[in-house]
């Protein structure tokens, strides 16, 4: 436990320190990388609530990630162009308002998908969540109002009260802050009574029901919370790229989020962080060296599954303990 | 001839040691009772013999063949038939398929197993998943017999059986013994176990605490090692 705690601390500090060092030595792009890591880690932390704690392998979380992105893109594009949306609402460029909207929209979508999907389990669940995400994906591709497959540009990054988000370091700060809050929420949920019930449901549903806890509401709540957090990351991601497109909704994205978690260590607090760091660093380092980078990325991922059970955190901190 | 020779084996679950040097032998045609309180290492010993839980130290040989580094299926083919703790029938196969999947040629055939457990004939095409506990237990024994073993290992094989059926199983065990099959048996019903056993091996905390013939297992010893 304490060893994992130490590793988590080191990872958190490392992620925080790198952009400052980078900007000091004149490597501004590294800040973007670190921001990307923080955002992907947040998205994966959201998924980790459902997947790591609840054993709900959602292969459709890109839907929530992308919906977050589109909420950010649509609200800010309306605010920018001045055309009102529905109900005369003008859109907004305020991140806090956007986040709130994204969380609500994704929460409702999560509720809808969850109610239907949670009737199934195992591989059926994997596939039905994928199906829903694919529906959203195809909808976004062929729906012309917001760019369809071409996507939607956000001309100026949305605003966060009191700071200038166009400065890379500041925007990193916002993303990092969101990540830390997200991790805090994850830890809190994991250790709480709700978390205990959720983790038990993953291990043995019948047992949980037999002590008087209904599994479905527990799972559904976890799924919705998970969707909301991932959507929040989606908002940030859209702002980072100043662009959203259906590729944020594609099954590759869902797969990538899962990969981040397993790579880092399923169900571990800092699993998504470690996974995102490793993945993004490998991707950008290899991509610069060789055109065959995906081949080597594949080899590295493979080696991780085969030889580092429990992901990076598992490798460093040993087996997970469930107290 | 010596059928099974277990010498000083030490077995670990991860870093936790469960067996601390277990030694005993089974002769051809002998019935040995493996005894001890809950959690003393009986099942672990059995898993070690089958190489499902390979020991880290010591050695095991079956009919003279050392089993270290043999994969479990090769060990089984040396003549071990296992009825594991908790039955472990294949839930997604029917009763019939469970038996056929295990079959290896020999004197034990489907017909003979069915004669031993007529109940299995009634449930022939039902998935093992939906069998009653006792039916699963019969299936597990039948399945082990279908492999035509030289050494039958029964880990709590009568657990959860109705008294009449339990008598059937004990009767079957006695028949098997009379036919010269070697048996290693773990069971809590001493009143049935002791009369069939040729020898007892009593475990305590992963070590052999006592061995001897059943007659020598006095009430005093039973109280000490088994809490009876």
């Amino acid at each position, binding site marked *: 436990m304490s060893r994992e705690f130490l590793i988590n601390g080191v990872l958190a500090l490392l992620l925080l320190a790198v952009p400052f060092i980078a900007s000091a030595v004149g490597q501004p792009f590294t800040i973007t990388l670190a921001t990307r890591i923080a955002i992907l880690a947040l998205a994966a932390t959201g998924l980790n609530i459902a997947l790591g704690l609840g054993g709900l392998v959602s292969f459709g979380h890109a839907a929530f990630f992308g919906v977050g992105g589109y909420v950010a893109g649509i609200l800010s594009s309306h605010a920018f162009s001045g055309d009102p949306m529905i109900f005369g609402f003008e859109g907004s460029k305020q991140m806090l308002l956007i986040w709130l909207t994204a969380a609500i929209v994704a929460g409702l979508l999560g509720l809808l998908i969850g109610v239907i999907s949670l009737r199934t389990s195992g591989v059926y669940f994997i596939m039905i969540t994928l199906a829903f995400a694919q529906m959203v994906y195809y909808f976004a591709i062929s729906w012309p109002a917001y760019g369809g497959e071409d996507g939607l540009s956000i001309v100026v990054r949305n605003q966060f009260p009191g700071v200038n988000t166009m400065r890379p370091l500041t925007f990193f700060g916002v993303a990092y802050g969101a990540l830390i809050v997200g991790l805090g929420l994850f830890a809190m949920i994991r250790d709480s009574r*709700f978390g205990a019930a959720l983790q038990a449901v993953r291990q043995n549903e019948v047992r949980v029901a037999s002590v008087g806890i209904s599994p479905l509401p527990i799972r559904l709540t976890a799924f919705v919370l998970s969707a909301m957090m991932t959507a929040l990351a989606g908002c940030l991601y859209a702002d980072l790229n100043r662009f959203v497109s259906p590729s944020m909704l594609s099954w590759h994205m869902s797969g990538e989020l899962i990969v981040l978690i397993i790579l880092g260590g399923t169900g571990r607090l800092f699993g998504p962080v470690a996974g995102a760091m490793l993945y993004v660093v490998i991707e950008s380092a290899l991509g610069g060296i060789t055109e065959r980078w995906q081949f080597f990325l594949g080899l590295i991922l493979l080696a991780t599954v085969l030889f580092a059970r429990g992901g990076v955190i598992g490798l460093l901190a040993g087996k997970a303990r469930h107290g | 001839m010596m059928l099974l020779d277990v010498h000083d084996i030490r077995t670990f679950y991860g870093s936790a040691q469960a067996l601390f040097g277990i030694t005993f032998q089974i002769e051809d045609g002998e019935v040995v009772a493996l005894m001890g309180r809950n959690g003393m290492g009986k099942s672990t010993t059995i898993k070690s013999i089958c190489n499902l839980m390979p020991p880290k130290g010591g050695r095991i040989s079956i009919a003279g063949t050392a089993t270290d580094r043999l994969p479990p299926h090769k060990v089984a083919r040396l003549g071990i038939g296992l009825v594991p703790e908790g039955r472990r029938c294949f839930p997604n196969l029917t009763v019939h398929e469970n038996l056929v999947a295990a079959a290896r040629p020999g004197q034990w055939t489907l017909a003979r197993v069915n004669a031993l457990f007529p109940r299995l004939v009634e449930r022939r095409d039902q998935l093992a998943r939906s069998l009653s506990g006792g039916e699963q237990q019969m299936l597990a024994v039948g399945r082990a017999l279908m492999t035509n073993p030289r050494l039958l290992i029964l880990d709590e094989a009568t657990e959860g059986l109705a008294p009449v059926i339990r008598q059937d199983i004990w009767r079957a065990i006695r028949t098997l013994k009379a036919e010269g099959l070697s048996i290693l048996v773990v069971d809590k019903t001493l009143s049935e176990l002791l009369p069939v056993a040729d020898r007892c091996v009593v475990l305590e905390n992963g070590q052999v605490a006592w061995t001897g013939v059943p007659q020598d297992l006095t009430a005093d010893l039973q109280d000490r090692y088994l809490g*009876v």
Partner: protein
Amino acid sequence: MAEPVLDIKGLRKNFGALKATDDVSISLYPGEIHALIGPNGAGKSTLIHQICGTLRQDQGSIRLAGKEIGNLGVAERARKGLGRTFQISSLAVEFSALRNVMLAVQARQGSSFRFLRPVRSDRNLVDEAMDRLSRVGLAERAHIPAGELSHGEKRQLEIAIALALDVKAFLLDEPMAGMGPEGSKVLTGFLAKLRQEAPILLVEHDMDAVFALADRISVLVYGRIIATGTVEEIRRDPVVRTAYLGDHA
């Protein structure tokens, strides 16, 4: 006689052509141990499953403390006071023994939708769970993951979990199975006292335990109750002897 705590009337369940329970009526009175015996496959576990709701009955009523519970879900029935053990251990295998029990304590204490306080430091949960573990003699093994317990220890844990609930009636499906001779002896003594807390419907093949414990015995054969009576009556019943007991009488 007092009102029955658990009152089952005309329960039926068919699996295709098989009548797993066929018009079963059984009642459980305060303070008693009612043993349910019968050949393998007679439908005992199926009956327990129906009472707990893990299987839905085709017909019949189940009343607990005077209220119909036959159409509630598993969790709701448990909340109303059914404490059960499984014939084949069913535990949260990654959790320690302690956390398995804590989950039951938490369920009894109220809503699981609490997000703030860490369970680890929640004395309300830990102390009570520890207490239940010591009652079944598993206190020393509290921090071992349930999946790593030996077979017998898992059985003990099943009971500890049932004890942690606010139980009006215990349904124990072969609690002795897998316990060694000593374990059986201890458990027998334990159940004898437990009936003060709530009556027990005991499914068991260990006749020594049944004869020592039961106030009444019902015999289930092919889904039907063929006899109900005291230990002596059942022991003497010729049909029961041939169908079930054999020499063990």
